[in-house]
Structures are given as C-alpha cells and as structure tokens.
C-alpha cells in the first residue's frame, strides 16, 4: 500500500498535555493544509489542485433541517440545566464566574420537602423514647416524650424560620436533646450522598457520553436511493425502529408507511450499521446489552447474537473486514471481540487509563486496516492492540500529550477508523480522533504524529462523526462532525493514495435544528418556548447518504435528537460557486413551511411531561394514626376494596378513617389591599359596585380556586384530595423556574389512597433517588426491625420495581439465569469476579443460557407483535425504564 512519500514537516515533542514552551506548529491556519510544498522541481504546477478545492461548498436547500417524521406520542422533558445545579449567587471578587454546585439549597429543600425520608430512620431509632398517640410507653426507665403534645404545640403555629415563634418548654427541651443527632447525622450522611449525586449530574450535563457514536444508522437497501433508517424511539428509547426511506435527487425523502419495531429491554445508546461482503449488519448497544442483527436484502432484520455486559457497555463497533465480527467495550476497562467462529474473547483489559491517570471509565474500540489489530481508546489516548499477540501489548496510536500538541485538560471524546469506502476514498489506515478542542487524523503506520489537526471550535462535545464516500471521483470526501448541542460541521478531506490527507478548503458549518425555527408559524410564547426547547434537544444520532452520481451530487443528512425527532437536510454540491458570485441564501419553500406546521400541530397535541415531583402527600396525623395496629384493618382497606369492586372512583368519604380535610390557616388578605382596592374603585366612582362585588364574591364559590391554590403553595402537609382543581393539574407550568416545585400538584392519575399502600417516602421520589436513599437507609441498623408497612426501607417492598436496577435484571425466569443480587451492589460484586462481558453462542434453536434467549425478538418489522409469553416482562421493563426517563429535577 502507498505511504505518502514525503510527509509534511512537524516537530515531535514528548511530554504531558499543555506544555507551554513548545512552539505549536499547528498554529497555522486552515489554509496551511491547502499549501503544498513544491516537489524537487519548483516549476511544477502547484496552483491548480488547491484552487479547485477552495471553491468547494455543500449548499443546503433550506435554511434549516426539516422534520422527517411526526413527533412521537410521548412527552419529552429537556431535563436538568445548569440552573438546577449551580449556585446562583456569585463571588464578587472573582475575575471569572465559577461553577459551584448548590448543595446547601438542595439539602435545605430536601429536608423541607422530604423530611419524612430524611428523618424517619432517625425517628425510628429514637422511637422508644417517644410516646406516640395511643401507644403505651414501652419503658419506664427511659425518658419518654409525648409526641402528641409536641405536635399539638407545633400544630399550625410555627411559621418556618421565624425567630420569634413561640417555643413551649417541651419543644425547647426536645430541640436541645435532639439537635446534635438530628443535625449532624442527617447533614453529614445525606449531604455527602447528595453532593455526590449533584456532582454526577453536573458531570453528565457537561458531558454525556452515553450516546457516543450515535444512535441513528442508515442501512442501504437494494437500490442506491432506498434504505432504512434505524433508530430508537419511545420515551424510554427502547424501541428500535426500522423506517424505510427512499431518496431521489430531485425531491424530498419519501418515508414509507408502517415502520418495523423491535421492543428491547433497555434504552438504546448506539446503533451501528455496516455492509461487509454484501451483508448488511446492525449492531446495537444499550446500557447493559449489545445485540447484533443481520439485515436481509429486503430489509428484514434477523437476530444473530445478544451479549450481556454487566458493568455497562460504552462502545460497540462492527468489523469492516469479517462479517458479523464486533468489538465491545465495557466500563470495567475490558475490550472483547466477538466473532461467529471464536465466540467472545477478551482481548484487552486495563482498568487504568492509557497515558495518564484519568477517572473516566469510558472506553472505545474500533478496527484497523488489519483485521486482527484493534484500536482501544480512552480519554487519554488510543492504542493499537494485536489480538493475536500477548495480552496488553501494543503501540500507542494517539497520545494525549505534547506529541499532538494537546492543550491542558484536553481529552479524547471519540475515535473512529476511517475505513474502506471504495477505491477512490481515503487511505484505510487513517483514524479520526476527536477531542473537545480539535480533530486529528492519525495514520496507523505513523503512530503518535497526527497528519492533520483542525481546531473545530464546536460549542459542545463532538460525539458523532461520519465519513462519506467521495461524491464524485476525484473530489474530496465529506466528513461530518456533530456536536451534542446540535452543531454540525462538514470537512472536506482530500488525499488519496500516496498523498497526505489534508483539508481541502475551509470546513463548513451546516444549519442546526434551531435554525429551522423561522419555518414554523408564529406561536404564543409558551408554545414557542416549547418548540424552541424541542429543537434545541441534544443530537444523539447522525447519518447521511450520498445519492448516486447524477448531475449534482446530493447529500441527504439525517439527525436524531434526544427528543426522538428525526430531521433531514439535503445539501447540493457546488463544486465551483464562482469566485465573485455570492450564492443566494436558501429560503423556505411553501412545502417546507407546510411540513413544519403539520409537525408543530402534532407536537402541540403531545401532552406535556407530568411534573416529576410533587409535594409529598403525607400528614403526620395520619402517620401517627397508622401506628395503631388495630386501626389498620379499619374501614380504609374496606372502602378501598368496595370502591374497586364497584369499579367506581375512590372518594374521600370511602376512606372513613381519614381525618377531615385539614386546612392550614390561610393568611387573610391584609386590610391594606382591601383598602387600596376600595380606594381605587372609589377613584373611578365605582365604590358601590365594588362593595357589591365584594359581598358577592365572599359568599359565592368564586373564591374557592384561589384558596385552594394558595393552600397548595403554602403547606407541604396538605392532603391531596380527589377534588384537586383539574385545570391546575393538567397544565402545570413548564417553565424552568423551580423556586416553588412543591406547588406542582400531582396529577390525579394515582388514587389518593396510594400513600397508604406504599411507603410514603417512595412516592413522588424519582426512581434514581430512591436507590440513593435506600443505600443511605440501609446503613442504619434499625431499618429491617421495624414492622413491615410503617415506612422506609425494605427491599422486598413493591416500590423497588421502580428502581433502575430492576430494569436490567428482569425477574422473569426465562430471562435471568445469572445468580445476581437484587441490588446493583450485588451485581457489581458478582461481576468483579466474573468476566464482565458474557456471551452465549445463541443459535436460535439452542439457547443454552436463558438470559440470552433472544432479547431482540426476531420478528419482522412488519409483524411487530410480541409473543404473549414475552409480553409481560417486556412491559414491566418498559414501564420501569419509562420512569427512569423522567429525569427528576433536583427539586428537593
């Protein structure tokens, strides 16, 4: 194979990142790459080639991408923002504002809103020193505090935070006795956990590497213009959708009806497709499973293999050389190669990073020009590993350091083998390495020295890249690079055969989804904001197809957003736009705006996300009451049963036990308001009318909603009753303001009595939080000794269904064979002893191990129905993961 006979000059310095006194030879501009050093004969024609490349431009046909498919029926929530996590007060003396996690506010909010969770275990510890209502004091020897009296003292008379509040002697004594325990233990244990969680969320906000590589793939069909888009859909991203699309050079892509669906057990993170020796293959990575399908010429997927990755998979790649061979990386640092002949083989394992110490468990692997040599990458570098050689040995291909003149804090975010794409394409030995600052091209025959470096300047992490075949023989190859935030760049890579790869012309930025906002009709602010949020959703997939060489090559670009929307854009190649002519800007066509309006209509019909958190429906009265064992069998369950038997709505009066609705004292509107209102009215000569109106409103029901609303805002001890104002519940504010999250009423889907049948703390707590809380409470000794239903922790309670750990360890006997604990701890302990990636050679007829029993249903896309035996477990996991998807705001 040809190796460039003369490489561009570059300095080689070894050392760590960001060495300052080394002259960075990549300081030069983009046109540096267009410059060619004259060969030994200086009169050689150097001018021609770069000038042709200079005028290269892909011109979009519309100012922004258009939606390809109507929005999905599930609501989407943009999730946490920096506003939810960071401290908003600033330090006055800093030159630059700093990101500081707001733990204090979050913990105070948590203690205030979820006092039951925070203090219940302690309460149980102290239980024997308290006398609950009706209970007999258990020990004569200990000091016993009567809770009833204490609460009576507190009842309704203690405005929070008021230093002049009346303190009874009892309260004073209690606070003196209890303060050291209550304040230190809760703050230290919970605070630590909360801080950890917040840091994790913040990290994920800065860089969410789950979708590295992209979850959208193009599987070419029988004819060049026809193919399938494969991508996850549904709110949990657990349904793999096969959408047939046909492309023509003249018109918009045609979407064929009845896409195929395959229901999976976990959210899909990466979809890879590749055609090897005429076989189209499709590999899918979810959190803990990887699967491989073969797609027939007709477009029917047939499952080949499912692999389970206990520690979580971070990357999957398909071999460009051998059909069906794939490589998987695990969070544990292991890289495994799977092939039909040899099965699963661990070819590399190193929990440490390659070049320097970095805590990230992210690993990536890809193939090279040699079918038995792989690249293994992490945040610090990329290594070539020979799978046939002794384990662990290999050369570093890319080193995060002075060799590539990396900056301080620079990390590898994506590596990709720019493999064979036809005879006219770039050299198959080239690899792409993307960091948050730059893009590098490295040749595997010349390790450590990047042949090309481009400062991409994207404002989000470049996690998606696609190299396309040259649109026409002799033209540079387009390389698409997409940031998580939706930015797109198109680089023209030239250099075939014996010449070095270089940029042919300045890279080009392509329109983002947000640029399409102008194609939508004018909206009221709330809907506009919603649309804007939707268009700004992170990009999680990118793919493109170049249509067969016609007169002008057409590039069809498809993007998948985290909200599940597929957008497309067509780009025409302008090989010579004319040096002086300024190309007319693309404008919206009537068809495009009509398409956007239709899409918007469908979007606005999608219900809004139900609030992820509502004030706990818990009152101490009831809790105290429930301690009475004889009362448990009282009218509550009976009323409940009766209501169920009759199939009618459960109403408050059915639960006779419930105390009458408790209304905290509402502060009456001050006399000033009334006075000013009246004065205003008088000023307009309407004093009498005002008086009449006022009398009327006092007596009439018009006052009711106002009171109700105020009540919801005021108190966290209210009981959510059956007659919550529905208008409030169905249209909660989607605004990001979270100053009063407790004001969001819970949707009335769940019967109000649920709190009695389930642990009160588990309600309204996002499932991820529940695990943290459970961990915390597991540390407390008393938790299992308490009588069953009282509260808090017991891993057997049904509430565990909502935890994320359930999601990947379905209880279904046909699925789970591994001896695993129910909790993630159990799973990790187990997996640390066993190889972290398991596989079973599952030919469909010999499922040796139940767990592999065809996780992807081999149904044809058309016949998307699931066998009935499988349905319940699938549904169970689905609902579990749906809960997981509801990203909780840190509103506690």
């Amino acid at each position, binding site marked *: 194979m040809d190796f460039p006979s003369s490489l561009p000059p570059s300095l080689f310095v070894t050392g760590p990142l960001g060495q300052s006194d080394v002259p960075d030879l990549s300081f030069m501009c983009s046109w540096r790459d267009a410059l060619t050093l004259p060969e030994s004969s200086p*009169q050689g024609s150097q001018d021609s080639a770069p000038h042709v490349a200079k005028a290269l431009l892909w011109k979009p046909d519309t100012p922004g991408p258009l939606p390809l498919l109507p929005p999905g029926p599930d609501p989407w929530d943009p999730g946490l923002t920096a506003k939810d996590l960071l401290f908003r007060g600033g330090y006055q003396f800093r030159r630059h504002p700093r990101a500081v996690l707001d733990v204090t506010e979050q913990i105070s909010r948590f203690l205030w809103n979820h006092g039951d969770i925070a203090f219940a275990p302690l309460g149980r510890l102290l239980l024997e020193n308290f006398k609950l209502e009706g209970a007999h004091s258990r020990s004569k020897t200990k000091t016993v505090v009567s809770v009833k009296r204490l609460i009576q003292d507190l009842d309704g008379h203690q405005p929070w935070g008021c230093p002049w509040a009346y303190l009874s002697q009892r309260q004073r004594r209690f606070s003196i006795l209890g303060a050291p325990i209550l304040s230190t233990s809760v703050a230290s244990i919970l605070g630590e956990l909360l801080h950890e969680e917040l840091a994790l969320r913040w990290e994920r906000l800065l860089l969410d590497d789950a979708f590295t590589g992209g979850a959208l793939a193009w599987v070419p069909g029988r004819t060049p213009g026809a193919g399938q888009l494969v991508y996850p859909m549904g709110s949990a991203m657990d349904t793999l959708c096969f959408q047939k699309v046909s492309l023509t050079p003249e018109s918009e892509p045609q979407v064929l009806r009845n896409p195929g669906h395959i229901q999976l057990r976990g959210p899909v993170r990466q979809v890879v497709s590749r055609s090897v020796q005429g076989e189209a293959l499709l590999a899918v990575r979810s959190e803990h499973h990887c699967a491989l399908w073969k797609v027939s010429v007709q477009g029917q997927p047939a499952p080949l293999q499912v692999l389970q990755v206990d520690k979580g998979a971070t990357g999957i790649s398909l071999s460009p050389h051998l059909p069906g061979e794939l490589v998987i990386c695990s969070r544990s640092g292991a890289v495994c190669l799977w092939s039909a002949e040899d099965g699963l083989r661990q070819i590399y394992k190193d929990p440490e990073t390659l070049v320097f110490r970095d805590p990230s468990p992210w690993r990536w692997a890809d193939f090279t020009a040699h079918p038995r040599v792989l690249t293994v990458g992490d945040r610090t570098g990329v290594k070539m590993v020979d799978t046939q050689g002794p384990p662990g040995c290999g050369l570093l291909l890319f080193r995060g350091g002075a060799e590539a003149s990396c900056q301080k804090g620079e990390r590898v975010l994506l590596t990709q083998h720019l493999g064979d794409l036809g005879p006219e394409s770039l050299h198959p030995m080239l690899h792409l390495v993307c960091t948050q600052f730059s893009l590098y091209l490295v040749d595997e025959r010349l390790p450590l020295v990047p042949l090309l470096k481009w400062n991409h300047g994207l404002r989000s992490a470049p996690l998606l890249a696609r190299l396309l075949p040259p649109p026409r023989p002799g033209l540079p190859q387009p390389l698409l690079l997409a940031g998580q935030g939706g930015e797109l760049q198109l680089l023209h890579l030239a250099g075939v055969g014996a010449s070095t790869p270089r940029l042919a012309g300045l890279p080009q930025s392509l329109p983002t989804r947000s640029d399409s906002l102008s194609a939508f009709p004018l909206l009221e602010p709330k809907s506009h904001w919603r649309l804007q949020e939707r268009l700004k959703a992170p990009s999680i997939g990118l793919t493109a197809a170049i249509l067969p060489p016609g007169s002008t090559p057409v590039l069809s670009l498809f993007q998948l957003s985290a909200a599940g929307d597929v957008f497309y854009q067509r780009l025409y190649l302008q090989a010579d736009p004319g040096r002086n002519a300024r190309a007319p800007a693309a404008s919206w066509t009537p068809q495009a705006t009509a398409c956007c309006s239709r899409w918007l209509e469908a979007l606005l019909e999608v219900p809004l996300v139900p609030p992820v958190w509502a004030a706990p429906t818990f009152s101490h009265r009831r809790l105290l009451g429930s301690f009475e064992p004889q009362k448990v069998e009282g009218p509550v369950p009976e009323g409940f049963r009766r209501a169920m038997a009759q199939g009618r709505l459960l109403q408050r009066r059915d639960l006779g036990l419930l105390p009458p609705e408790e209304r905290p004292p509402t502060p009456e509107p001050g006399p000033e308001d009334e006075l000013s209102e009246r004065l205003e009215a008088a000023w307009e000569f309407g004093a009498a009318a005002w008086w009449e109106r006022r009398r009327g409103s006092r007596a009439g029901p018009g006052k009711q909603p106002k009171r109700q609303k105020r009540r919801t805002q005021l108190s966290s001890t209210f009981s959510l009753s059956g007659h919550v104002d529905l208008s409030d519940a169905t249209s909660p504010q989607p605004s990001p303001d979270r100053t009063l999250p407790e004001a969001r009423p819970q949707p009335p889907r769940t019967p109000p009595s649920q709190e009695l049948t389930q642990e009160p703390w588990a309600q309204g707590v996002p499932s991820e939080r529940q695990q943290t809380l459970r961990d915390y409470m597991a540390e407390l000794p008393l938790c299992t000794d308490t009588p069953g239903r009282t509260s808090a922790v017991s891993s057997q309670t049904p509430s565990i269904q909502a935890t994320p750990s359930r999601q990947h360890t379905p209880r279904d006997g046909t699925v789970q064979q591994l001896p695993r604990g129910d909790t993630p701890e159990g799973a990790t302990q187990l997996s640390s002893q066993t190889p972290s990636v398991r596989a079973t050679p599952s030919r469909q007829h010999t499922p040796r191990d139940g767990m592999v029993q065809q996780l992807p249903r081999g149904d044809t896309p058309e016949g998307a129905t699931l066998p009935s035996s499988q349905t319940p477990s699938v549904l169970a996991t689905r609902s579990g993961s749906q809960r997981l998807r509801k990203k909780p705001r840190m509103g506690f």
Partner: protein
Amino acid sequence: MTDFSEELIRPTTEDEQGKPCVRSGSGMYFPWLQKHIESIASGGKQEKDFAQTTSACLSFIQEALLKHQWQRAAEYMHSYLQVLEDTDSNKRQGAPEIVWRLGSEILYYHPKSNMETFNTFADRMKNIGITNYLKISLQHALYLLHHGLLEDANRILTQAETWRYGEKSSSQEVLVNLIQAYKGLLQYYSWSKKKMELSKLDKDDYAYNTASQNMLNRSWKTSINLCTLIQIPGVWDPFVKSYVEMLEFYGDRDGAREVLNNYAYDEKFPSNPNAHVYLYDFLKREKAPREKLISVLKILYQIVPSHKLMLEFHRLLRKSDKEEHHKLGLEVLFGILDFSGCTKNITAWKYLAKYLKQTLMGSHLAWVQEEWSSRKSWWPSFHFSCFWAKRNWKDDKTLACEKALVAGLLLGKETRLQQWMAGQWRNSV
C-alpha cells in the same frame, strides 16, 4: 468572553479556569462550561461593554468563515481590529494572533484579495505584538512559496532569520531553525534548477565552470541551513531528502549516510517509515550488499508490513542464501495480504502462490503451518469467501485464479469444512 479567547489567555488564568471543572474530578476542560455558567444569573464581575462587543464580533467572524461568507467576515474583521487596543493586557497580548489567524484566513479565500493585500497585512501584523513575528513570517513565506514567488519568500525568511527578541527561548530557537530550514529548501530548489541547466551544458564550456562554482557556494550555505533542524526530533521528510541529495551530489556519502541513519534510528524521533525508505533508497543507490538492504527493510517490515517495498523485500529474501531469510520471505507475503488495503494486490498473490508451492516442495511444511495457524481462523472468511470469489471473478480473473490456487494449497490440507470451502471456491470460480 468566548471560548476562543479563553483558550488563548489560558496560560495566565488557567488556575481560575481550571477550577470549575474540579467537580468532575478529572481535570478535563470544557469549552462549553462558560456557556453553562453564563446561563445562570451569576454575580461576579461583569464583562465590560468593550469585551462583550469584541467577543460577539469574534463569534460573528468565525460563523461567517464557517459559512464561507468571506465578504461578511471581512466586514466584521474591520470592526474587530479594535481588539488590538484592548485595555485588558491578557487579551491584548492574545489579540494579534487571533487577528492574524482570522485575517489571513479571510484574505486567503476572499475573492477580491490579492498578493499585495496579503503582503501588506502580513507585514503589519508581524510588527504588532512582537511574539508572533517568527510565526507570521514563516506563514507569510509559505503563502508566497505556494504562489510560486520563491524570491519573495526567500527575502521574508532571510529577514526573519536574523530577528531576535529578548532572551532566546527554546520555542524561538526551534522556529528560527524551521525558518532556516525552509530557506535551505528554497536554496535547494534553485540549486536543483541549476543542476538541471548544468546537465544540459557542455562540460568543457566556460559557463559550466562558473555555474558549478555557484552551485558549490549555494550548497555550502544550504547545508548549514538544513542540518541544524534535522537534528531536532520531528518529521522532516522534505528537508532530509533534499539535504541528502545535495550531499550525495558532492560526494559526501558518509555525511549522507550519517544523516539518514540518524533520521531512521534515533530513538527520539518518531518511527517514520519514510526514514527507512530513504535509507534503503540511498543504500540501493550506493549498491550496498544485500545483507545490509535486508536489515534495513527488516525494520521497515516491523513498522509497516503493508508497505509497497515489502514485495521488493520478499524478492531480496528469496534470493538470499540463508534459510531463515527464506522463511521470512513467506512471512512477509502473508503479512502483506493481512491488510485490507492489499487484498487485491495481484503481485502479492502471485508471489504467494509461487512461493507456497516452492516452500512445500522444499519440504518446509512447518513454515507454512506456522504462518497458517494464526490465520486459519479468519483468512477463509476474509479472502476466500463466496462473496469475494464472485466479485474477483467478475473484476479480475487472474486475481481470482491466483487466489483460488492459494486457497487450494492452504485449505486443501486442513479440515473437512475448509476442504468444502475450497471446493465451493473452486466451483464458484
């Protein structure tokens, strides 16, 4: 403040900048962190209006450039120049480099720009902010070189070569070396031009003598210019190549050999396949013994088993008397065909078919088995699949036949499955 300018002033403020990421515990730096921080209403020092407008202007320029709107970018650039008078000393120091980078970019692509505009701009920028003089000079020279103005480029490089500022830092030294090397390269170009003319002249001519005298002088200067840079670790292919050519011309073979040996075998240098290729070519010209050539190519084989010289290496090994060389010859052929880019190399397949037969007849079955054992799991599906059989047959019948021959030799002796596959292969062919 934008990420771009952040980046440039980072050396001085990196402690403050680095800290926001401490939360992640990894020391990773996020260019988009600033965006998040700005999204919350944070206290702290507000940016001045001037800083706000310049950073907005900068992002407009970058946007226009990425959309290939040179005209618009130039208009914004006009306003952006005020950043050179920023009162913030950090920014003022970083500004000339940004202005140069963006400005030269615009002028390179702008339809109305010409050589004079670029020259004027470069000359101005060199003298604003002293630290960039060398870098800008070098790029300016490259620009001229690219446009074929060797004389002008030479003048710029000569000016830059003698330029000194303050204490000589290591980075400055490397840059000066680089500038000298480019100057040397320019001299080499004119030298080789002269050489071409000289080759046309009659040796007894008077003009010949003066011309050769001229060349000697030039060569001496050039060698001074080139030899310092190529001692520094790096990839210096064009410089080494021209330097060696000149040394060879004047008969300094030892000097040339030393340069090439150093370039190929110095451990501080990256493992550059071209270094070995140049050494091999030199030795071949020198008519070095076969042993020597083999030893050079052996190292190249270890670095790049897919190199096109490997076929030549195989021929050398085949001609050798040593048995181990014969064995290596087989290994080399298998090694070439391992790579996906070489699967259609008809010569390699021909050699392999021939050499396999030869080896098997020479009763060295063990050699073949040794090579084959690591490949038998994947070569059949990599090379000898039905897909390739059909495709090769369609594209290149000779290739298909050679492959079929090799497949028969390799697979025929193994398991039944492979026999079957070979049969399939034969049938399909």
